[in-house]
């Protein structure tokens, strides 16, 4: 069975790398383990036939999000990198609560899923299965996102936009409007010789006034 042949290495790799993410002493290794996690997760999705989701996981998370993580972590000084595990167990209660909530939600969705689709349970299952077989879930996903859930989808986009504007305003505000150094290419191109060149013969020992 080729599917089993690939499932167990991918699943074990996912769990192992996931453990390494929180156990690694060096934060750069932790981010690299996170990337291995994403790779194995994408492999599992592709194995299930959800190829579109798998590739999207790779493009968005490995290609962009994890690069930014790595970007930030690499800039930490050696002292900050020394041991990220200090105080590791302090928020364990909160973490367990959040994890429990996440699993409860996933369980609820898995339990209720056939009945939340407007077309009825059998319809949704059949449509998804057909789409998975044909184009890796592309059509089913697109139809669901842009028709049944168009409004929540747009709201998700707006929330991200708010976060983005917030980040821009934070950096603008922190530096102050005048403190930010800018280069205007139009000004640079428009410079004339008279603006920047001054020919003079300064007397020895005196120089010239600026």
């Amino acid at each position, binding site marked *: 069975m*080729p599917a089993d042949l690939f499932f167990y290495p991918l699943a074990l790799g996912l769990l192992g790398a996931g453990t390494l993410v929180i156990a690694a002493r060096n934060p750069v290794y932790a981010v690299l383990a996170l990337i291995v996690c994403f790779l194995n997760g994408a492999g599992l999705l592709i194995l299930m036939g959800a190829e579109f989701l798998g*590739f999207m996981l790779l493009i968005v998370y490995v290609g962009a999000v994890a690069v930014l993580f790595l970007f930030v972590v690499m800039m930490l000084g050696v002292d900050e990198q020394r041991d990220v595990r200090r105080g590791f167990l302090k928020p364990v209660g909160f973490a367990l609560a959040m994890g429990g909530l996440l699993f409860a939600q996933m369980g609820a969705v898995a339990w209720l899923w056939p009945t939340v689709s407007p077309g009825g349970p059998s319809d949704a299952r059949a449509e998804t299965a057909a789409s998975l077989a044909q184009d890796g879930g592309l059509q089913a996903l697109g139809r669901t996102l842009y028709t049944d859930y168009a409004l929540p989808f747009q709201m998700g986009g707006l929330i991200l936009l708010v976060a983005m504007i917030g980040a821009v305003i934070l950096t603008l505000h922190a530096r102050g409007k005048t403190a930010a150094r800018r280069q205007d290419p139009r000004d640079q191109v428009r410079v004339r010789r008279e603006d920047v060149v001054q020919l003079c013969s300064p007397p020895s020992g005196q120089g010239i006034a600026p």
Partner: protein
Amino acid sequence: MLDLGGTEGPWWFFWLIVVAQGAGALAVLLGAVAYLTYAERRVMASMQLRRGPNVVGPFGLLQPMADGVKLIFKQILIPQAVNVPLFLGAAVLTFFLALAAWAVVPVNAGWVLADLNLGVLYLLAISSFGVYGIILAGWASNSKYPFLGGLRSAAQMVSYEVATGLVLVTVLLQAGSLNLSHIVEAQRGGVGHWFIASLLFPMFIVFFIAGLAETNRHPFDLPEGESELVGGFHTEYSSMPFALFFLGEYANMILVSAFATTLFLGGWLPPLQALAFIPGPLWFAAKVGACLFVFLWARATLPRYRYDQLMRIGWQRLLPFTLVWVVLVAAVGLAQGTLPGG
């Protein structure tokens, strides 16, 4: 997915064919990479009124072999403070990714190693990994200039990927498929049906500029930036690890050219039906060669951009323009009823 049912003969025969196909494709690709380095030196030499390599073999044609032998026999220097597994792994990763992407590129009808339905996404995913080779090389070298080169490259490649993704959307709106072979077939019927001859022409330009930036080629070669950063992210590399970066960069150039050929220039299809007697792979190679020539031309002609100019071009010029063009292509498709599935 794996289709093991339809093959005649024992299971190992199937695997043997797959491995042989892959090895054959790699052999051709590596030969092309070797002679791209030669072509680059000769083309730039004639643009700059020099002779270029003309001593080793007839017309200097054996120069790539001499260079390869030299690189193999050099000592591999590993500085003391580097993180050895990541230092070597980064070079291997860069080279590996540059080769892995070729699995989905069709060079003729049915001539493709893996005919994925989501081939475009596969290419996008592989090319988005490329940044790790460079960023890890910069970090693992444990040295100032490589680190700066790695950071620059991370920001640069992520920035230009956004524009590339939107360009792909416009192509997909016309082709109606993520399968590269289907995209080529959608352009059948001569040069007038190629996507470059349609509304998408500006997108070809944007794609090419973003391709220059993603392969770290001139005028966007700031991650290397000899005048500021010594050798950029590969300052500390020597011998074969350096050669892996070098070959990876050239293989990526060929890949971007092949991608552009597939998306905009009709892949293996002839420009006129009367020329259909010339086999498809030759057309494909000729078109890829033409794109590569522009890569070399740009290197011989253009000065390097400043970093803020690079960022401005990516975010303030290419991205808004491409975004408007996506809406335009979709609107025209909607008005003419040519949108796929609509």
